[in-house]
């Protein structure tokens, strides 16, 4: 009996060992916030303007404004003859482990937050005969991090300081065309050029010896991809959409300048490097459907697949370890529209709510965001003003990250 127990315990022990994660290069894999990780989430497909954000980030199933060209250009055929839209947003997100913060150099007792406000979309669409064209610009990704600035003072004398700052933007210029192929089927294609930059700076100073070390890295991004979609207007109530974005290479002309400066010793050492780097962005596939339950009430849902397992980051000539998995983002939303008359004018008030499940691609930690979104607006004739808020919470990393966004958009439809 005793031998059996020992055998059982050994079996249990080795079984548990089998399930233990293998050793990995974990400390160089930060998880959510690698240097090249976008602010908030890795999963970007076009941009969510206010009307989209309010409905659980539903963005390629309904023709809300001309930003749909960035995710599903087929929906352009559903817009009025001319549509002009722009959007601005306020973003706030918390960070815990990024760059030199909470990876061994600088410690924070709790998560750090960063925010920014940006004018992030402007676009126009125009229908000529059976064709609809659109030209859009959007702020696709942001790479900002909370600034870390530590100073050690003693008796009003600065002895040591360390400063870290990272900022970056990726812009997207889109040209799309679409066409209605039949009463129920529309297709569309978009050509997208991305461009932007990322700059990271770490400066460390030992004031007494007048020694400083600075580490500057800058990246100029460029690349292009296509996105396409179709839209099926199956019945008055039921519509479906399917989209895809090609995988693409985000190229980077990267520069690194690492320097050590000690004027009292006449020391000025610099190590400079430049490289043509590549970030292999994933294929994206999406499927969505909407259903008009009542005349003024509809629901919709989208599934978006990101092929992150093919992601590669080639950074200064070395392929970085990014052990990523494919993910499917899920969005569910609803919209109800009220109307009222004021000064003999008809006004419409959309009320929107939604939910989105946004798994992040890294295998370790297995992390995801859940967003609850709400939105409203006022529509008068062709003028649409919309606003939305998204409240997101992360779980899985143990860092309890949060992300919030408020968006405002204005569209004029002729």
């Amino acid at each position, binding site marked *: 009996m005793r031998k059996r127990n020992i055998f059982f315990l050994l079996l249990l022990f080795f079984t548990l060992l089998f399930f233990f994660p293998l050793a990995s290069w974990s400390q*160089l894999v930060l998880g959510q916030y690698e240097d090249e990780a976008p602010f908030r989430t890795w999963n970007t497909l076009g941009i969510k303007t206010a009307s989209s954000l309010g409905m659980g980030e539903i963005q390629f199933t309904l023709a809300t404004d001309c930003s749909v060209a960035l995710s599903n250009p087929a929906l352009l055929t559903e817009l009025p003859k001319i549509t002009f839209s722009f959007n601005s947003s306020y973003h706030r997100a918390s960070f815990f482990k990024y760059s030199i913060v909470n990876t061994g150099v600088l410690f924070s007792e709790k998560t750090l937050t960063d925010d920014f406000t940006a004018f992030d979309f402007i676009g126009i669409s125009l229908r000529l005969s059976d064709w609809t064209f659109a030209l859009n610009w959007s702020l696709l990704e942001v790479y900002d991090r909370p600034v870390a600035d530590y100073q050690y003072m003693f008796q009003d004398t600065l002895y040591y300081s360390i400063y870290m700052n990272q900022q970056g933007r990726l812009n997207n210029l889109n040209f799309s065309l679409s066409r209605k192929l039949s009463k129920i089927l529309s297709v569309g294609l978009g050509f997208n050029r991305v461009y932007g930059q990322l700059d990271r700076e770490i400066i460390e100073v030992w004031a007494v010896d007048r020694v400083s*070390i600075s580490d500057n890295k800058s990246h100029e991004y460029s690349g292009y991809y296509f996105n396409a979609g179709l839209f099926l207007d199956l019945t008055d109530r039921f519509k479906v959409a399917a989209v895809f974005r090609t995988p*693409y290479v985000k190229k980077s002309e990267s520069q690194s300048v690492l320097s050590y400066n000690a004027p009292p010793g006449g020391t000025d050492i610099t190590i400079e490097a430049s490289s043509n780097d590549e970030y292999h962005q994933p294929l994206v596939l999406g499927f969505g459907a909407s259903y008009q339950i009542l005349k003024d009430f509809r629901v919709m849902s989208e599934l978006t697949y990101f092929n992150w397992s093919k992601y590669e980051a080639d950074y200064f*000539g070395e392929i970085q370890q990014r052990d990523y998995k494919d993910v499917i983002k899920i969005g569910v939303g609803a919209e109800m529209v009220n109307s009222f008359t004021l000064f003999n004018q008809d006004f419409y008030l959309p009320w929107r709510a939604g939910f989105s499940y946004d798994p992040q691609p890294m295998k370790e930690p297995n992390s995801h965001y859940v967003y609850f979104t709400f939105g409203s607006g006022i529509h008068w004739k062709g003028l649409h003003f919309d606003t939305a808020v998204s409240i997101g919470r992360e779980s899985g990393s143990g860092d309890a990250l949060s992300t919030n966004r408020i968006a405002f958009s204005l569209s004029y439809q002729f």
Partner: protein
Amino acid sequence: MKKVIFFLLVFSFILLPLRSQSYSDTDIISVEKNQKIIRELQKMGLDFLMDWSERLYFVCNPTDLYRLQAEGISYVIETPNFYPYSQGDILIQGRINGAFHSYLELEADLMALEAAYPYLAKVVDIGDSLEGRNIYALKISDNVNLDESEAEVFFVGCHHAREWISVEVPYLLGKYLVENYESDPEIKSLVDSSEVWIVPLLNPDGLEYSIYFYRYWRKNRRNNGDGSYGVDLNRNYGYNWGYDDEGSSPIPSSQTYRGPSAFSEPEAQVIRAFFQQKNFQALITYHNYSQVILYPWGYTNMPSAKDELLEEIAAEMSEQMEAVNGNLYGYGQAGSTLYLTNGDMTDWSFGIYGIPSYTIELPPADVLHGGFFNAEREISSIFEENLPAALYLIHWSILNF
């Protein structure tokens, strides 16, 4: 029909390959020529260069190398054999760490050295770091695949991640020995009569963090569980480990944190296991900065029983080093020359095995002249002035074997 054609055109256009091939940062590699591998390679569409001496040669970019690794196809980096070897630095320039080696660059260069001098050099994976990187030892000897009854000497670099120069000196020592074997009778004699073991990079995890995140990272990458990271590998050896809190620290966030127990770190365990298999006569562990030669004891300022011998060897090494560039390397017992250290490698190797053990703190001499930071152009001169000390210690080991 027009609509269908439009639809097909649109989608076939999208499916055109979007990625163009980049030929920057390419390497020439060779793989064994056999039918199974040829079938695998045909699928991968590599840039074929030539078929020579039962091996196939290709031009590969980093992505290709990654794919080969993923497919489990072993390859040899041949690039150095296609250029004059003096251009070695050019191959690694342009990287983020300049002319200094990263983990992958060192791995490739060690493999290239083995491939270029298979009868003299052999790369052995002696264990893994905490994060799973290989710790490589380069063996240099005649009949390198045999374990002969010869003097064994050990050189190790990069206990401390930020001391990038400490990777270069032992690596260049290995390179010098094999490259000058045929042309220099003195080198031939040393290599024929000894087995030189070189571990240029003991702390690969720390080095990578130092390259990619924070230049002045020192320790390994142990998550201490209190928000701090890293154990000082050169305070983790098991001879008088934790003797006091001056020569090492019990505080995890300290730069000299000795770890929760002696040999708690896999990197130190690898060295212990390796020493158990060998019979070393002497060793040098490279660090920087200070420009001094240190010998045991480090944990106390009391001299060891072999103090005279240790000093005599150090004095000879110092004299020979000064003769190269005129740079004086001071020398003395570690505990009374620089500062107290306990749990360091030389106390352990001297305390357990009784062998002459030296820490060479490479240039610069002080923080105002660079501290842990060396210019790329200094690599050669620092190596050259350290070469006679290493050769002298090999020679001494042969004589005392």
